[in-house]
Protein backbone atom coordinates (compact mmCIF):
# COMPACT_ATOMS: atom_id res chain seq x y z
CA UNK A 1 0.00 0.00 0.00
CA UNK A 2 1.29 3.43 -0.82
CA UNK A 3 1.29 6.31 1.59
CA UNK A 4 0.81 9.42 -0.58
CA UNK A 5 -2.74 9.69 -1.81
CA UNK A 6 -3.55 6.29 -0.44
CA UNK A 7 -3.06 4.90 -3.92
CA UNK A 8 -3.00 1.19 -3.67
CA UNK A 9 -0.23 -0.50 -5.52
CA UNK A 10 0.30 -4.13 -6.21
CA UNK A 11 -0.93 -6.85 -8.46
CA UNK A 12 -4.55 -6.51 -9.29
CA UNK A 13 -6.48 -9.60 -8.59
CA UNK A 14 -10.10 -10.16 -9.48
CA UNK A 15 -10.40 -12.49 -6.59
CA UNK A 16 -10.12 -9.92 -3.82
CA UNK A 17 -11.88 -6.58 -3.34
CA UNK A 18 -10.73 -3.94 -0.98
CA UNK A 19 -13.55 -3.18 1.45
CA UNK A 20 -13.39 -0.09 3.59
CA UNK A 21 -15.61 -0.32 6.62
CA UNK A 22 -17.95 2.60 7.08
CA UNK A 23 -17.04 3.00 10.74
CA UNK A 24 -13.37 2.40 10.55
CA UNK A 25 -12.58 4.84 7.78
CA UNK A 26 -9.49 3.48 6.14
CA UNK A 27 -9.38 0.31 8.10
CA UNK A 28 -8.87 -1.64 4.93
CA UNK A 29 -9.68 -5.26 5.24
CA UNK A 30 -9.04 -7.34 2.20
CA UNK A 31 -11.67 -10.03 2.10
CA UNK A 32 -12.85 -12.65 -0.23
CA UNK A 33 -15.83 -10.51 -0.95
CA UNK A 34 -15.17 -10.79 -4.63
CA UNK A 35 -16.24 -14.38 -4.46
CA UNK A 36 -18.93 -13.96 -1.82
CA UNK A 37 -20.50 -10.80 -3.20
CA UNK A 38 -19.33 -7.50 -1.79
CA UNK A 39 -22.45 -5.91 -3.17
CA UNK A 40 -24.32 -7.09 -0.13
CA UNK A 41 -22.49 -4.53 1.99
CA UNK A 42 -22.51 -0.83 1.39
CA UNK A 43 -18.82 -0.04 1.35
CA UNK A 44 -17.01 3.22 1.03
CA UNK A 45 -13.49 4.09 0.09
CA UNK A 46 -12.16 7.39 1.43
CA UNK A 47 -9.01 8.46 -0.30
CA UNK A 48 -8.42 11.96 1.01
CA UNK A 49 -5.61 14.22 -0.02
CA UNK A 50 -3.29 14.18 3.05
CA UNK A 51 -2.57 17.87 2.57
CA UNK A 52 -6.25 18.74 2.72
CA UNK A 53 -6.74 16.59 5.80
CA UNK A 54 -3.83 18.42 7.42
CA UNK A 55 -5.45 21.80 6.73
CA UNK A 56 -8.74 20.62 8.22
CA UNK A 57 -6.93 19.18 11.22
CA UNK A 58 -5.24 22.52 11.92
CA UNK A 59 -8.52 24.40 11.59
CA UNK A 60 -10.17 21.95 14.00
CA UNK A 61 -7.36 22.40 16.52
CA UNK A 62 -7.86 26.14 16.31
CA UNK A 63 -11.59 25.74 16.81
CA UNK A 64 -10.85 23.65 19.90
CA UNK A 65 -8.74 26.58 21.12
CA UNK A 66 -11.60 29.02 20.45
CA UNK A 67 -13.99 26.87 22.50
CA UNK A 68 -11.47 26.50 25.33
CA UNK A 69 -10.90 30.25 25.42
CA UNK A 70 -14.63 30.94 25.68
CA UNK A 71 -14.85 28.35 28.44
CA UNK A 72 -12.05 30.07 30.34
CA UNK A 73 -13.86 33.39 29.88
CA UNK A 74 -17.11 32.00 31.29
CA UNK A 75 -15.19 30.43 34.15
CA UNK A 76 -13.59 33.78 34.97
CA UNK A 77 -16.96 35.54 34.94
CA UNK A 78 -18.44 32.82 37.13
CA UNK A 79 -15.61 33.10 39.64
CA UNK A 80 -15.54 36.89 39.60
CA UNK A 81 -19.27 37.36 40.13
CA UNK A 82 -19.74 34.27 42.26
CA UNK A 83 -22.17 32.76 39.75
CA UNK A 84 -20.33 29.56 38.97
CA UNK A 85 -23.21 27.26 39.87
CA UNK A 86 -25.67 28.28 37.13
CA UNK A 87 -22.83 28.30 34.60
CA UNK A 88 -21.80 24.71 35.18
CA UNK A 89 -23.84 23.22 32.31
CA UNK A 90 -22.49 25.85 29.92
CA UNK A 91 -18.94 25.24 31.07
CA UNK A 92 -19.33 21.49 30.71
CA UNK A 93 -20.80 21.70 27.21
CA UNK A 94 -18.25 24.25 26.05
CA UNK A 95 -15.29 22.30 27.39
CA UNK A 96 -16.82 19.13 25.95
CA UNK A 97 -17.03 20.74 22.52
CA UNK A 98 -13.35 21.65 22.72
CA UNK A 99 -12.40 18.10 23.66
CA UNK A 100 -14.61 16.73 20.89
CA UNK A 101 -12.86 18.96 18.36
CA UNK A 102 -9.48 17.70 19.56
CA UNK A 103 -10.56 14.06 19.33
CA UNK A 104 -12.12 14.53 15.90
CA UNK A 105 -8.98 16.23 14.69
CA UNK A 106 -6.95 13.20 15.76
CA UNK A 107 -9.47 10.78 14.24
CA UNK A 108 -9.51 12.73 11.02
CA UNK A 109 -5.75 12.37 10.89
CA UNK A 110 -6.35 8.62 10.85
CA UNK A 111 -8.76 9.04 7.93
CA UNK A 112 -11.84 8.10 9.89
CA UNK A 113 -14.96 8.38 7.76
CA UNK A 114 -17.19 8.73 10.80
CA UNK A 115 -15.00 11.57 12.12
CA UNK A 116 -15.40 13.32 8.77
CA UNK A 117 -19.16 13.06 9.08
CA UNK A 118 -19.19 14.29 12.69
CA UNK A 119 -16.91 17.22 11.81
CA UNK A 120 -19.29 18.24 9.04
CA UNK A 121 -22.27 18.08 11.42
CA UNK A 122 -20.33 20.11 14.00
CA UNK A 123 -19.41 22.76 11.46
CA UNK A 124 -23.04 23.04 10.41
CA UNK A 125 -23.94 23.65 14.07
CA UNK A 126 -21.25 26.34 14.33
CA UNK A 127 -22.67 27.99 11.21
CA UNK A 128 -26.19 27.80 12.63
CA UNK A 129 -24.99 29.52 15.82
CA UNK A 130 -23.27 32.20 13.77
CA UNK A 131 -26.49 32.72 11.81
CA UNK A 132 -28.42 33.25 15.06
CA UNK A 133 -25.86 35.78 16.29
CA UNK A 134 -25.81 37.52 12.90
CA UNK A 135 -29.59 37.80 12.97
CA UNK A 136 -29.51 39.20 16.51
CA UNK A 137 -26.80 41.68 15.55
CA UNK A 138 -28.69 42.90 12.50
CA UNK A 139 -31.94 43.13 14.45
CA UNK A 140 -30.60 44.80 17.59
CA UNK A 141 -27.72 47.03 16.56
CA UNK A 142 -28.24 47.00 12.76
CA UNK A 143 -24.64 45.92 12.17
CA UNK A 144 -23.16 42.72 10.74
CA UNK A 145 -20.74 40.58 12.70
CA UNK A 146 -17.20 41.84 13.16
CA UNK A 147 -14.15 40.81 11.20
CA UNK A 148 -12.96 38.15 13.67
CA UNK A 149 -16.35 36.44 14.17
CA UNK A 150 -16.82 36.34 10.40
CA UNK A 151 -13.45 34.60 10.06
CA UNK A 152 -13.77 32.18 12.97
CA UNK A 153 -17.47 31.40 12.84
CA UNK A 154 -18.26 31.58 9.14
CA UNK A 155 -15.12 31.39 6.99
CA UNK A 156 -13.41 28.60 8.97
CA UNK A 157 -16.48 26.30 9.19
CA UNK A 158 -17.31 26.89 5.52
CA UNK A 159 -13.68 26.15 4.57
CA UNK A 160 -13.77 22.91 6.56
CA UNK A 161 -17.06 21.88 4.96
CA UNK A 162 -15.83 22.67 1.45
CA UNK A 163 -12.53 20.88 1.97
CA UNK A 164 -14.20 17.79 3.42
CA UNK A 165 -16.92 17.70 0.80
CA UNK A 166 -14.28 17.66 -1.90
CA UNK A 167 -12.76 14.61 -0.24
CA UNK A 168 -15.74 12.41 -0.93
CA UNK A 169 -15.87 8.75 -0.34
CA UNK A 170 -16.43 6.51 -3.28
CA UNK A 171 -18.05 3.17 -3.50
CA UNK A 172 -15.84 0.56 -5.10
CA UNK A 173 -18.00 0.64 -8.21
CA UNK A 174 -17.34 4.33 -8.82
CA UNK A 175 -13.79 4.53 -7.61
CA UNK A 176 -10.83 3.85 -9.79
CA UNK A 177 -10.03 0.20 -10.28
CA UNK A 178 -6.74 0.54 -8.49
CA UNK A 179 -8.31 2.21 -5.49
CA UNK A 180 -11.18 -0.18 -5.23
CA UNK A 181 -10.16 -3.57 -6.36
CA UNK A 182 -6.81 -4.86 -5.47
CA UNK A 183 -4.87 -7.33 -3.55
CA UNK A 184 -1.19 -7.63 -3.46
Amino acid at each position, binding site marked *: LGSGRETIRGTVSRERILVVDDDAGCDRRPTDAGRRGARRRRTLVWTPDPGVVEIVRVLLL*MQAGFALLSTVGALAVGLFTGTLAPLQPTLAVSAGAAVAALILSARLGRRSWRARRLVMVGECLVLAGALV*DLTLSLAIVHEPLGLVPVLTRIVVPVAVLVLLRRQRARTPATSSPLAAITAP
Partner: protein
Amino acid sequence: VSGVAHILGAAGPTLGSPLYRVLPDHLPGLLALGPGLLAVGLVRRRARAGGRLTSWLAGGYRALPADRRFLAWLLLATAAVHLGLVAGEPRPGLAVLFALDGLAFLEVVRRLLLGRRFRRWAALLLVGSILAYCIAVLADEPPDQVGVVTKLIEIAALALVMRPLRATLPRRLLASGATTFLVVATGLAVWAGAFAAASRAGGGHHGGAPEPGTLVHRSDGRPPTPAERAAVARFWRSARPVLARYRNARLAGADGYAVGGMVGNDFHAANAGHGSDGRIFDPVRPEALVYARTSRGALLLGAVYEMPSLEASGPRIGGPLTEWHSHEQVCFSLMPPALSGLVSPFGGCPVGSIAVPGTPEMIHLWVVPGAPRFGDLDDGLRRRYISSFEATGRV
Protein backbone atom coordinates in the same frame (compact mmCIF):
# COMPACT_ATOMS: atom_id res chain seq x y z
CA VAL B 1 -3.50 56.22 27.02
CA SER B 2 -1.54 57.31 23.97
CA GLY B 3 -2.23 53.91 22.45
CA VAL B 4 -5.96 54.50 22.43
CA ALA B 5 -5.94 58.21 21.74
CA HIS B 6 -6.78 57.71 18.10
CA ILE B 7 -9.86 55.68 18.99
CA LEU B 8 -11.20 58.57 20.96
CA GLY B 9 -11.27 60.68 17.86
CA ALA B 10 -13.34 58.15 15.97
CA ALA B 11 -16.80 59.04 14.79
CA GLY B 12 -19.97 58.24 16.75
CA PRO B 13 -21.45 59.31 20.07
CA THR B 14 -20.25 56.27 22.04
CA LEU B 15 -16.94 54.62 22.77
CA GLY B 16 -16.37 50.88 22.91
CA SER B 17 -13.41 48.62 23.41
CA PRO B 18 -11.13 48.45 20.35
CA LEU B 19 -11.12 44.67 20.83
CA TYR B 20 -14.35 44.50 18.82
CA ARG B 21 -13.35 47.16 16.30
CA VAL B 22 -10.74 48.06 13.71
CA LEU B 23 -8.37 50.79 14.83
CA PRO B 24 -8.01 53.49 12.18
CA ASP B 25 -4.24 53.11 11.94
CA HIS B 26 -4.61 49.35 11.39
CA LEU B 27 -7.04 49.76 8.51
CA PRO B 28 -4.28 50.00 5.85
CA GLY B 29 -3.09 46.57 6.99
CA LEU B 30 -6.49 45.13 6.19
CA LEU B 31 -6.79 47.00 2.92
CA ALA B 32 -3.34 45.76 1.85
CA LEU B 33 -4.84 42.30 1.30
CA GLY B 34 -6.35 43.69 -1.92
CA PRO B 35 -3.06 44.82 -3.47
CA GLY B 36 -1.54 41.57 -2.18
CA LEU B 37 -4.01 39.59 -4.27
CA LEU B 38 -3.30 41.84 -7.23
CA ALA B 39 0.42 41.17 -6.85
CA VAL B 40 -0.22 37.42 -6.92
CA GLY B 41 -2.27 37.91 -10.08
CA LEU B 42 0.59 39.84 -11.66
CA VAL B 43 3.07 37.09 -10.80
CA ARG B 44 0.81 34.54 -12.46
CA ARG B 45 0.45 36.74 -15.51
CA ARG B 46 4.18 37.24 -15.83
CA ALA B 47 4.70 33.51 -15.38
CA ARG B 48 2.36 32.83 -18.31
CA ALA B 49 4.26 35.41 -20.31
CA GLY B 50 7.46 33.46 -19.66
CA GLY B 51 9.10 35.46 -16.87
CA ARG B 52 11.93 33.38 -15.44
CA LEU B 53 11.55 33.90 -11.68
CA THR B 54 7.78 34.11 -11.85
CA SER B 55 7.65 30.85 -13.81
CA TRP B 56 9.72 29.18 -11.13
CA LEU B 57 7.45 30.56 -8.43
CA ALA B 58 4.27 29.51 -10.24
CA GLY B 59 5.72 26.09 -11.04
CA GLY B 60 6.86 25.68 -7.45
CA TYR B 61 3.38 26.55 -6.23
CA ARG B 62 1.76 24.03 -8.55
CA ALA B 63 4.14 21.32 -7.32
CA LEU B 64 3.25 21.87 -3.66
CA PRO B 65 0.79 19.70 -1.76
CA ALA B 66 -2.44 21.31 -0.59
CA ASP B 67 -1.29 22.16 2.93
CA ARG B 68 1.88 23.86 1.68
CA ARG B 69 -0.14 25.87 -0.84
CA PHE B 70 -2.44 26.97 1.97
CA LEU B 71 0.62 27.84 4.03
CA ALA B 72 1.92 30.01 1.19
CA TRP B 73 -1.37 31.92 1.13
CA LEU B 74 -1.34 32.39 4.91
CA LEU B 75 2.23 33.72 4.82
CA LEU B 76 1.39 36.02 1.92
CA ALA B 77 -1.62 37.35 3.84
CA THR B 78 0.39 38.18 6.94
CA ALA B 79 3.13 39.71 4.79
CA ALA B 80 0.57 41.94 3.09
CA VAL B 81 -0.96 43.01 6.41
CA HIS B 82 2.45 43.88 7.88
CA LEU B 83 3.47 45.87 4.81
CA GLY B 84 0.11 47.64 4.86
CA LEU B 85 0.51 48.54 8.53
CA VAL B 86 3.56 50.61 7.60
CA ALA B 87 1.23 53.13 5.97
CA GLY B 88 -0.84 53.67 9.10
CA GLU B 89 1.87 53.47 11.75
CA PRO B 90 2.79 56.88 13.18
CA ARG B 91 5.88 55.59 15.04
CA PRO B 92 8.81 55.33 12.58
CA GLY B 93 10.63 52.61 14.50
CA LEU B 94 7.60 50.35 14.53
CA ALA B 95 6.89 51.11 10.87
CA VAL B 96 10.40 49.89 9.97
CA LEU B 97 9.85 46.72 11.98
CA PHE B 98 6.53 46.10 10.21
CA ALA B 99 8.24 46.55 6.84
CA LEU B 100 11.06 44.17 7.75
CA ASP B 101 8.57 41.63 9.06
CA GLY B 102 6.52 41.81 5.85
CA LEU B 103 9.57 41.44 3.65
CA ALA B 104 10.86 38.53 5.74
CA PHE B 105 7.52 36.74 5.31
CA LEU B 106 7.74 37.31 1.54
CA GLU B 107 11.23 35.80 1.52
CA VAL B 108 9.92 32.74 3.37
CA VAL B 109 7.19 32.37 0.74
CA ARG B 110 9.82 32.62 -2.00
CA ARG B 111 11.89 29.88 -0.36
CA LEU B 112 8.79 27.72 0.09
CA LEU B 113 7.83 28.05 -3.58
CA LEU B 114 11.35 27.47 -4.85
CA GLY B 115 11.68 24.32 -2.77
CA ARG B 116 14.39 25.64 -0.48
CA ARG B 117 14.67 25.18 3.29
CA PHE B 118 12.09 27.43 4.87
CA ARG B 119 10.64 25.76 7.97
CA ARG B 120 13.14 27.08 10.50
CA TRP B 121 12.89 30.66 9.20
CA ALA B 122 9.14 30.49 9.02
CA ALA B 123 8.84 29.11 12.54
CA LEU B 124 11.18 31.77 13.94
CA LEU B 125 9.36 34.58 12.20
CA LEU B 126 5.91 33.36 13.15
CA VAL B 127 6.77 32.70 16.80
CA GLY B 128 8.51 36.07 16.99
CA SER B 129 5.57 37.89 15.43
CA ILE B 130 2.98 36.23 17.72
CA LEU B 131 5.11 36.77 20.81
CA ALA B 132 5.82 40.40 19.92
CA TYR B 133 2.11 41.07 19.49
CA CYS B 134 1.26 39.50 22.85
CA ILE B 135 3.91 41.60 24.58
CA ALA B 136 2.77 44.75 22.76
CA VAL B 137 -0.88 44.35 23.71
CA LEU B 138 0.01 43.66 27.33
CA ALA B 139 2.35 46.65 27.42
CA ASP B 140 0.64 49.53 25.62
CA GLU B 141 -1.06 48.61 22.33
CA PRO B 142 -4.82 48.00 22.59
CA PRO B 143 -5.73 44.87 20.62
CA ASP B 144 -8.12 45.22 17.71
CA GLN B 145 -9.72 43.02 15.06
CA VAL B 146 -6.93 43.41 12.49
CA GLY B 147 -4.31 42.35 15.03
CA VAL B 148 -6.35 39.37 16.17
CA VAL B 149 -7.08 38.18 12.61
CA THR B 150 -3.40 38.46 11.72
CA LYS B 151 -2.38 36.42 14.76
CA LEU B 152 -4.94 33.74 13.90
CA ILE B 153 -3.49 33.53 10.40
CA GLU B 154 0.00 33.25 11.86
CA ILE B 155 -1.01 30.55 14.37
CA ALA B 156 -2.55 28.51 11.55
CA ALA B 157 0.62 28.98 9.51
CA LEU B 158 2.80 27.98 12.44
CA ALA B 159 0.72 24.84 12.98
CA LEU B 160 1.29 23.86 9.34
CA VAL B 161 5.00 24.69 9.50
CA MET B 162 5.54 22.72 12.70
CA ARG B 163 3.74 19.62 11.42
CA PRO B 164 6.05 16.75 12.27
CA LEU B 165 7.66 15.31 9.15
CA ARG B 166 7.93 11.92 10.85
CA ALA B 167 4.46 11.68 12.30
CA THR B 168 4.91 9.51 15.37
CA LEU B 169 2.09 9.61 17.89
CA PRO B 170 3.94 11.63 20.56
CA ARG B 171 5.03 14.20 17.98
CA ARG B 172 1.54 14.55 16.60
CA LEU B 173 0.10 14.94 20.10
CA LEU B 174 2.73 17.51 20.95
CA ALA B 175 2.08 19.50 17.77
CA SER B 176 -1.69 19.38 18.24
CA GLY B 177 -1.45 20.37 21.90
CA ALA B 178 0.94 23.20 21.08
CA THR B 179 -1.42 24.61 18.46
CA THR B 180 -4.41 24.62 20.78
CA PHE B 181 -2.34 26.00 23.64
CA LEU B 182 -1.03 28.79 21.41
CA VAL B 183 -4.58 29.77 20.43
CA VAL B 184 -5.71 29.89 24.06
CA ALA B 185 -2.58 31.69 25.29
CA THR B 186 -2.79 34.30 22.54
CA GLY B 187 -6.48 34.82 23.25
CA LEU B 188 -5.84 35.28 26.96
CA ALA B 189 -3.04 37.76 26.24
CA VAL B 190 -5.33 39.73 23.92
CA TRP B 191 -8.11 39.71 26.49
CA ALA B 192 -5.74 40.84 29.23
CA GLY B 193 -4.38 43.50 26.88
CA ALA B 194 -7.87 44.86 26.20
CA PHE B 195 -8.60 45.18 29.93
CA ALA B 196 -5.14 46.65 30.56
CA ALA B 197 -5.75 49.29 27.86
CA ALA B 198 -9.04 50.22 29.55
CA SER B 199 -7.32 50.35 32.93
CA ARG B 200 -4.60 52.66 31.60
CA ALA B 201 -7.27 54.94 30.20
CA GLY B 202 -9.23 55.23 33.43
CA GLY B 203 -10.81 51.82 33.76
CA GLY B 204 -14.29 50.74 34.72
CA HIS B 205 -17.42 51.53 32.80
CA HIS B 206 -16.60 55.19 32.50
CA GLY B 207 -12.90 55.43 31.68
CA GLY B 208 -11.41 57.09 28.61
CA ALA B 209 -11.47 53.76 26.78
CA PRO B 210 -13.98 51.37 28.27
CA GLU B 211 -13.49 47.77 29.23
CA PRO B 212 -14.47 45.11 26.69
CA GLY B 213 -18.24 44.71 26.73
CA THR B 214 -19.02 48.30 27.74
CA LEU B 215 -20.09 51.28 25.64
CA VAL B 216 -19.82 54.78 27.10
CA HIS B 217 -20.56 58.30 25.94
CA ARG B 218 -17.65 60.49 25.05
CA SER B 219 -16.81 62.69 28.01
CA ASP B 220 -16.67 66.43 27.43
CA GLY B 221 -14.28 66.69 30.37
CA ARG B 222 -16.06 69.56 32.07
CA PRO B 223 -16.81 69.59 35.82
CA PRO B 224 -20.44 69.37 37.02
CA THR B 225 -22.26 72.66 37.54
CA PRO B 226 -23.90 73.52 40.90
CA ALA B 227 -27.30 72.94 39.30
CA GLU B 228 -26.26 69.47 38.21
CA ARG B 229 -24.95 68.66 41.70
CA ALA B 230 -28.28 69.83 43.15
CA ALA B 231 -30.19 67.65 40.69
CA VAL B 232 -28.22 64.58 41.75
CA ALA B 233 -28.85 65.40 45.42
CA ARG B 234 -32.59 65.74 44.75
CA PHE B 235 -32.64 62.42 42.93
CA TRP B 236 -30.86 60.72 45.83
CA ARG B 237 -33.27 62.21 48.39
CA SER B 238 -36.17 60.73 46.41
CA ALA B 239 -34.60 57.33 45.90
CA ARG B 240 -33.17 56.78 49.39
CA PRO B 241 -36.39 55.79 51.21
CA VAL B 242 -37.30 53.28 48.52
CA LEU B 243 -33.84 51.76 48.52
CA ALA B 244 -33.91 51.57 52.31
CA ARG B 245 -37.07 49.47 52.02
CA TYR B 246 -35.39 47.19 49.48
CA ARG B 247 -32.56 46.36 51.86
CA ASN B 248 -35.03 43.63 52.73
CA ALA B 249 -34.97 41.39 49.66
CA ARG B 250 -38.31 39.84 50.58
CA LEU B 251 -40.02 43.22 50.30
CA ALA B 252 -38.29 43.75 46.97
CA GLY B 253 -39.60 40.37 45.83
CA ALA B 254 -43.10 41.38 46.93
CA ASP B 255 -42.80 44.50 44.76
CA GLY B 256 -41.94 42.46 41.67
CA TYR B 257 -38.14 42.19 41.72
CA ALA B 258 -36.80 38.79 40.69
CA VAL B 259 -34.77 38.09 43.83
CA GLY B 260 -35.08 34.30 43.63
CA GLY B 261 -31.97 32.22 42.95
CA MET B 262 -29.67 34.97 44.15
CA VAL B 263 -25.98 34.15 43.59
CA GLY B 264 -22.72 36.07 43.55
CA ASN B 265 -21.75 39.55 44.62
CA ASP B 266 -23.28 41.41 41.66
CA PHE B 267 -26.76 39.92 41.36
CA HIS B 268 -29.15 42.05 39.34
CA ALA B 269 -32.78 41.49 40.36
CA ALA B 270 -34.86 42.91 37.52
CA ASN B 271 -38.39 44.16 37.76
CA ALA B 272 -40.12 43.37 34.48
CA GLY B 273 -43.03 45.66 35.37
CA HIS B 274 -40.79 48.67 35.83
CA GLY B 275 -39.00 47.92 32.58
CA SER B 276 -42.15 48.45 30.59
CA ASP B 277 -44.03 51.05 32.64
CA GLY B 278 -43.01 53.93 30.37
CA ARG B 279 -41.41 55.86 33.25
CA ILE B 280 -37.82 56.87 32.61
CA PHE B 281 -35.23 57.39 35.36
CA ASP B 282 -37.91 57.48 38.05
CA PRO B 283 -36.01 57.48 41.38
CA VAL B 284 -38.65 55.37 43.14
CA ARG B 285 -39.04 52.80 40.37
CA PRO B 286 -35.58 51.43 39.48
CA GLU B 287 -35.61 48.78 36.77
CA ALA B 288 -33.33 46.47 38.81
CA LEU B 289 -31.71 46.16 42.22
CA VAL B 290 -28.13 45.01 42.78
CA TYR B 291 -27.53 42.58 45.63
CA ALA B 292 -24.63 40.57 46.96
CA ARG B 293 -25.38 37.22 48.47
CA THR B 294 -23.55 36.98 51.78
CA SER B 295 -23.40 34.57 54.68
CA ARG B 296 -25.93 36.80 56.45
CA GLY B 297 -28.29 36.94 53.47
CA ALA B 298 -28.90 39.44 50.72
CA LEU B 299 -27.05 42.75 50.91
CA LEU B 300 -28.34 45.65 48.81
CA LEU B 301 -25.57 47.41 46.92
CA GLY B 302 -27.55 49.69 44.66
CA ALA B 303 -30.11 50.09 41.92
CA VAL B 304 -30.08 50.16 38.14
CA TYR B 305 -32.12 52.55 36.00
CA GLU B 306 -32.49 51.43 32.42
CA MET B 307 -33.78 53.04 29.25
CA PRO B 308 -36.67 51.25 27.53
CA SER B 309 -34.99 50.94 24.10
CA LEU B 310 -31.58 50.84 22.44
CA GLU B 311 -32.14 54.03 20.57
CA ALA B 312 -32.98 56.18 23.61
CA SER B 313 -30.25 58.05 25.51
CA GLY B 314 -30.50 58.38 29.28
CA PRO B 315 -31.22 61.83 30.77
CA ARG B 316 -27.98 63.31 32.12
CA ILE B 317 -29.55 65.28 34.94
CA GLY B 318 -26.21 65.55 36.70
CA GLY B 319 -24.10 66.17 33.60
CA PRO B 320 -20.77 64.38 34.11
CA LEU B 321 -22.06 62.97 37.40
CA THR B 322 -24.68 60.89 35.59
CA GLU B 323 -22.85 59.18 32.74
CA TRP B 324 -24.98 56.38 31.32
CA HIS B 325 -23.46 53.30 29.75
CA SER B 326 -24.62 50.28 27.80
CA HIS B 327 -23.19 46.84 27.13
CA GLU B 328 -22.10 45.13 23.93
CA GLN B 329 -20.83 41.69 22.95
CA VAL B 330 -22.22 40.01 26.03
CA CYS B 331 -22.65 36.24 26.10
CA PHE B 332 -25.90 34.92 27.48
CA SER B 333 -26.20 31.24 28.33
CA LEU B 334 -29.44 29.49 27.45
CA MET B 335 -29.02 26.53 29.79
CA PRO B 336 -30.06 27.90 32.27
CA PRO B 337 -30.43 31.60 31.40
CA ALA B 338 -27.41 33.41 32.85
CA LEU B 339 -24.68 35.83 31.91
CA SER B 340 -21.88 33.63 30.61
CA GLY B 341 -19.20 36.18 29.87
CA LEU B 342 -18.08 38.40 27.04
CA VAL B 343 -17.54 37.56 23.40
CA SER B 344 -13.98 36.26 23.32
CA PRO B 345 -11.20 37.93 21.32
CA PHE B 346 -11.80 35.19 18.72
CA GLY B 347 -15.42 36.19 18.34
CA GLY B 348 -17.18 33.38 20.17
CA CYS B 349 -19.28 32.71 23.22
CA PRO B 350 -19.27 29.50 25.24
CA VAL B 351 -21.16 26.74 23.44
CA GLY B 352 -24.85 27.01 24.20
CA SER B 353 -24.73 30.80 24.57
CA ILE B 354 -25.82 33.58 22.27
CA ALA B 355 -23.96 36.84 21.74
CA VAL B 356 -26.09 39.84 22.68
CA PRO B 357 -24.68 42.65 20.53
CA GLY B 358 -26.08 45.55 22.56
CA THR B 359 -28.28 46.58 25.48
CA PRO B 360 -30.26 49.74 26.28
CA GLU B 361 -28.45 52.43 28.26
CA MET B 362 -28.34 52.07 32.02
CA ILE B 363 -26.96 53.79 35.08
CA HIS B 364 -26.17 52.48 38.56
CA LEU B 365 -27.05 54.25 41.79
CA TRP B 366 -25.00 52.93 44.72
CA VAL B 367 -25.91 52.82 48.39
CA VAL B 368 -22.44 51.63 49.44
CA PRO B 369 -20.82 54.19 51.79
CA GLY B 370 -17.84 55.84 50.14
CA ALA B 371 -18.92 54.95 46.60
CA PRO B 372 -19.84 57.65 44.08
CA ARG B 373 -23.61 58.03 43.91
CA PHE B 374 -23.65 57.17 40.19
CA GLY B 375 -20.97 55.43 38.15
CA ASP B 376 -18.60 52.55 38.92
CA LEU B 377 -18.41 50.68 42.19
CA ASP B 378 -14.79 49.94 43.03
CA ASP B 379 -14.25 46.20 43.52
CA GLY B 380 -12.18 46.73 46.67
CA LEU B 381 -14.90 48.87 48.18
CA ARG B 382 -17.51 46.27 47.28
CA ARG B 383 -15.48 43.50 48.95
CA ARG B 384 -14.87 45.57 52.07
CA TYR B 385 -18.56 46.45 52.35
CA ILE B 386 -19.58 42.80 52.01
CA SER B 387 -16.92 41.67 54.54
CA SER B 388 -18.00 44.33 57.00
CA PHE B 389 -21.64 43.26 56.66
CA GLU B 390 -20.75 39.60 57.11
CA ALA B 391 -18.70 40.42 60.21
CA THR B 392 -21.11 42.80 61.92
CA GLY B 393 -24.48 42.25 60.29
CA ARG B 394 -24.85 46.02 59.92
CA VAL B 395 -24.64 48.29 56.91
